[in-house]
């Protein structure tokens, strides 16, 4: 993955607009969050292969980015995205890494289902 290029990600979000896309969305602080810190508790949320169609996809921010997908009846967004890649399967992979390089958030779009 490479540091996000906002314009390029925006043009990919535009390409997926109006199509039925499979979505992977996750955020986590890890199952061990409570082990090393008294104050933290493990939190996370995860959707893999939800199928959605959005009418407007937007990336904003600088350095750390946010992506919002507006649907006819709702919203999807991710915050803290730092890196991106279009893989061999033509999928848009976006991820946010912390200072140690650990994944903290991911948003991925694909026209075919993600592998389980």
């Amino acid at each position, binding site marked *: 993955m490479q540091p996000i290029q906002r314009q390029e990600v925006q043009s990919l979000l535009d390409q997926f607009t109006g199509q039925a896309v499979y979505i*992977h969305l*996750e955020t*986590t602080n890890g*199952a*061990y969050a409570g*082990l090393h810190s008294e104050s933290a508790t493990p939190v996370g949320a*995860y959707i893999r292969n939800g199928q959605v169609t959005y009418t407007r996809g937007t990336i904003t921010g600088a350095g750390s980015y946010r992506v919002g997908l507006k649907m006819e009846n709702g919203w999807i967004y991710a915050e803290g995205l730092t890196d991106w890649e279009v893989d061999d399967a033509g999928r848009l*992979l976006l991820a946010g890494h912390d200072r140690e*390089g650990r994944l903290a958030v991911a948003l991925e779009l694909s026209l075919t289902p993600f592998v389980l």
Partner: protein
Amino acid sequence: MERQVLVVFPHPDDETLAVGGAIAYHAHAGSPITYACFTLGQMGRNMGRPFFANRETLPQIRERELRTAVQALGIGDLRMLGFRDKTLEFEDPKTFVTIISDLIAELNPSLIITYYPGYCVHPDHETLAAATIEAVRLLPTGERPRIHCQAFSKGHERDLGKRDVILDTSAVWEHWYRAIKAHKTQTAARVEALETSLNGSDEDRMDAIRSLSEQKLYTYPL
């Protein structure tokens, strides 16, 4: 020497980070070892340092890491069960009891190694540890293998006391270390620290080797 060892964990690297010394010890003694690894650790947060994996490439990379680690530890038989990381607790628990019971019936292990239920933090660990104990309890008393467990939750020693199984792994510390290194996406920070010590003063080197020269576990009271 054990007739057969069965190792049960959910994630590639559990076998190395939780009990790698014990596995290398038993393999070195000539005991046949089967490792039932239930997921590919698809949801791991560590992507290498600096990161080189992404959410979609991580499973293939971790499978390769696992195969290298398994070889380093001397595990002759790796079974990958194909479940999805972080979802085990949402499956029907009977699924896992059945899989483990079938493995016990096939392999007739004298020793099973897994996590200590109630003291192993990650929901996937807890699910498989509980299923393993359940599968062994279904056997008649005289036919049950021993179970050695690893625990690492906060304050586990307060409840469980000191570990009673103490293995001298000084003859196999390098095997254990090679397995730790094999799990590159997950262990970069630890390997960096160990490497620095191993290449440092005699005292630092001895400390690093000593940290890999003993493995302690609990016997699970059935």
